[in-house]
């Protein structure tokens, strides 16, 4: 079974530029999560989708971050404009249903904002 795919793996941008990350979850998984992992900290949930609807985006900085999952499969997370403090690893995870014990994580995208 293929795992969660993410691209790109690494991205370096200047502050105030925009960037987008892509995630392809495990086939058949209805729930998709985006986490932000800042160096020295544990992952923090940014947004959770159930199919193509948002379940929880309470910790998403909506003035600069946006995410979509239009067809209930792939998802894109965008930052516009980026700030220095957005430097982090962005992890995507998926699960068959909204169960914490069955989340599978992708390799992440490491973002560096200069």
């Amino acid at each position, binding site marked *: 079974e293929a795992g969660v795919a993410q691209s790109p793996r690494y991205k370096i941008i200047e502050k105030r530029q925009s960037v987008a990350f892509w995630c392809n979850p495990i086939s058949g998984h209805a729930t998709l999560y985006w986490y932000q992992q800042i160096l*020295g*900290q544990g*992952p923090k*949930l940014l947004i959770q989708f159930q199919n193509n609807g948002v379940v929880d985006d309470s910790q998403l900085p909506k003035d600069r971050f946006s995410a979509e999952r239009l067809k209930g499969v792939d998802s894109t997370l965008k930052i516009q404009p980026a700030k220095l403090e957005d430097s982090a690893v962005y992890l995507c995870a998926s699960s068959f249903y909204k169960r914490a014990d069955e989340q599978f994580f992708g390799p992440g995208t490491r973002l560096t904002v200069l």
Partner: protein
Amino acid sequence: AQSVTQLDSQVPVFEEAPVELRCNYSSSVSVYLFWYVQYPNQGLQLLLKYLSGSTLVKGINGFEAEFNKSQTSFHLRKPSVHISDTAEYFCAVTFGSYQLTFGKGTKLSVIP
């Protein structure tokens, strides 16, 4: 307030020695508990989980953890570590919901 605390940010240990990584949580509701491992430049991999039943949980790679409700702890143990266990370990908790709250992580360094 609900929180997860990993008491040690870094733990060095010699190869074949035992190790314990500590995790405490603060909660007034029932919890599910998890340990994840993250190897360099990789995503998180589930090591083990406690949902209910026996408080001693066995996971992959020879790791085990014990849920102690009175001490609100879920410490991870391995009787004999290998070089390949060098990684970062995260404790995670659900506080009455299905969403994970992670600790800050413990970096385990196994010394040859």
